[in-house]
């Protein structure tokens, strides 16, 4: 009987003892089980990391483009995290239910960093809601009564140095780490750029965040400026 490396067994299959057959079968089953578990683990992994451009899937390139443009003196996020409805709690545990009740389909998150000080940051949360009405509803739910209106998107306000707005079916938080004037100005500028990208369809033209689920995207090289 032919085998690996052209060797031949000295015995025919009928001559293999029952014990050897059982051991062989167990080894084959174990190997198959390990392979199945390995594949299942890889498929169910909580994060999918990839370089922009290395996977030509429109669903994944959208968030990178959405948060690609940074003001002078700032780096755009070099990592974008996406969360589907089932993973939203991982980012905003305790608050996720409110968003889900308003039809949240997912979240895209990234952090802009000041070139002169990496501790100065601006976080951007882009919540993709089911409809523009849902985006407006959750925006109004969270809006403080005394908030200062800002001319941005369909509706916007400032709270300290942070900016909150909705545009189409998106509700967006732009949150500087601190409260100084430079960060506040950067937050306004970043918010304006995100509005621009949303109007260009950077997010809408791609598959929904919901379909992307939990993912981590990294730009090849430093973020755009």
């Amino acid at each position, binding site marked *: 009987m032919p085998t690996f490396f052209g060797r031949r067994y000295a015995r025919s299959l009928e001559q293999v003892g029952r014990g050897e057959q059982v051991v062989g079968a167990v*080894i084959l089953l*174990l*190997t198959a089980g*390990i*392979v199945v*578990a*390995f594949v299942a*683990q*890889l498929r*169910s*992994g*909580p994060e999918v990391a990839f370089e922009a451009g290395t996977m030509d899937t429109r669903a994944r390139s959208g968030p990178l483009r959405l948060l690609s443009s940074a003001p002078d003196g700032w780096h755009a996020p070099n990592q974008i995290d996406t969360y589907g409805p089932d993973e939203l*709690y*991982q*980012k*905003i*545990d*305790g*608050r*996720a*239910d*409110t968003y889900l009740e308003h039809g949240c389909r997912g979240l895209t998150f990234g952090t802009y960093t000041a070139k002169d000080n990496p501790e100065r*940051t601006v*976080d951007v949360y882009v919540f993709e809601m089911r409809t523009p009405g849902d985006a407006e509803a959750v925006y109004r739910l*969270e809006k*403080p009564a*005394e*908030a200062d209106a800002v001319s941005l998107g369909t509706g916007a306000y400032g*709270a*300290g*140095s*942070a900016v*909150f707005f909705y545009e189409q079916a998106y509700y967006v*938080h732009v*949150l500087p*780490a*601190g*409260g100084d004037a430079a960060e506040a100005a950067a937050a306004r500028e970043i918010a304006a750029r995100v509005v621009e990208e949303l109007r260009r369809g950077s997010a809408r033209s791609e598959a929904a965040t919901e379909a992307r689920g939990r993912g981590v995207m990294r730009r090849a090289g430093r973020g755009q400026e």
Partner: protein
Amino acid sequence: MAAGLAGAGGYWLRERSPEAHDALRGQPPSLVLRDYFAPVTLPPDAPRIAVAIGDEGQFEALVRAALAGLDRERGVRRFIGPNDVVLIKPNVGFDRPPAMGATTHPELVRWLVRLCREAGAREVLIADYPIESPEACFARSGIARVAGEEGARVVSATPRDFAAVSVRWALAGSLLSGWPVFVEPLRRATKLIGIAPVKDHNLSRASITLKNWYGLLGGRRNQLHQAIHEVISDLAVLFSPTFVIADGTRVMLTNGPTGGRSTDVRPGGVLGRSVVVAATDPVACDAWCYENLLGRDPAELTYLKLARQKVATAAALGRCGFGESDWRAYNRQGLIVTTHV
């Protein structure tokens, strides 16, 4: 050999899955958490709640005053002694900077670590299990940096550090019975201190010292949201800390527990000044903070009512500690002290 390598690889990946400890669920609880309050001997008239009120930035003075208030004679030395291994459990649940008030202020953690050291603690551990990237949360909160500067050790969680625990004291039917808990640092510690920001919470209405223990639960804990008040009240019995501290330096009054707006946060909440509250009765501490910092009526807070009942049941069965959701009862007995720093 290939099968062996594949097996080893699969095991390695599986061990690193954040949900790996879900497998613990349903197993018989094998561990009973220690009662960290039991070794403390308090005089009967010792304050249960000590409130320190000051200005923004007075972190050292606020922590010292609050802890001195719990024991005028010995301060923190009443609770922490030589050779203690102290576990500090802050709220590091979000990847947000300190100013947003979603996490415990790092400077309070700094001074708590120092006071534990001054009292002779052999080692100070800091642990939390954020659902988000723990590294990012500890870094952004400033607590990783403070821990490094003060010689405390941040204990990172791996799936092997979780175990199903027994919810003692006749709390049969608790959702937490058999739930995976980040036990490794608890096993090592001889004293346990919870230090939590005071926050509005979308589901439970408040996140203070009792909800803080939620951060040591593993598994898909968002599933517990369906019965949030039951779960938080169970935490009042499951965890028996040496003492707790409520961080009222930035109280999140709205849009909790994440916040994000400067208008969501105010020093001392409705009190309007920075506050640090130390307490040996976590239930009363939450009640005090709910009324005096969040400006709401504790009688309407379901988890407090449940916690009071459960702690009373546990006490009747021999557990140490208190569980007074009516902080005014302590006030009438002179068991609340307030210090202006």
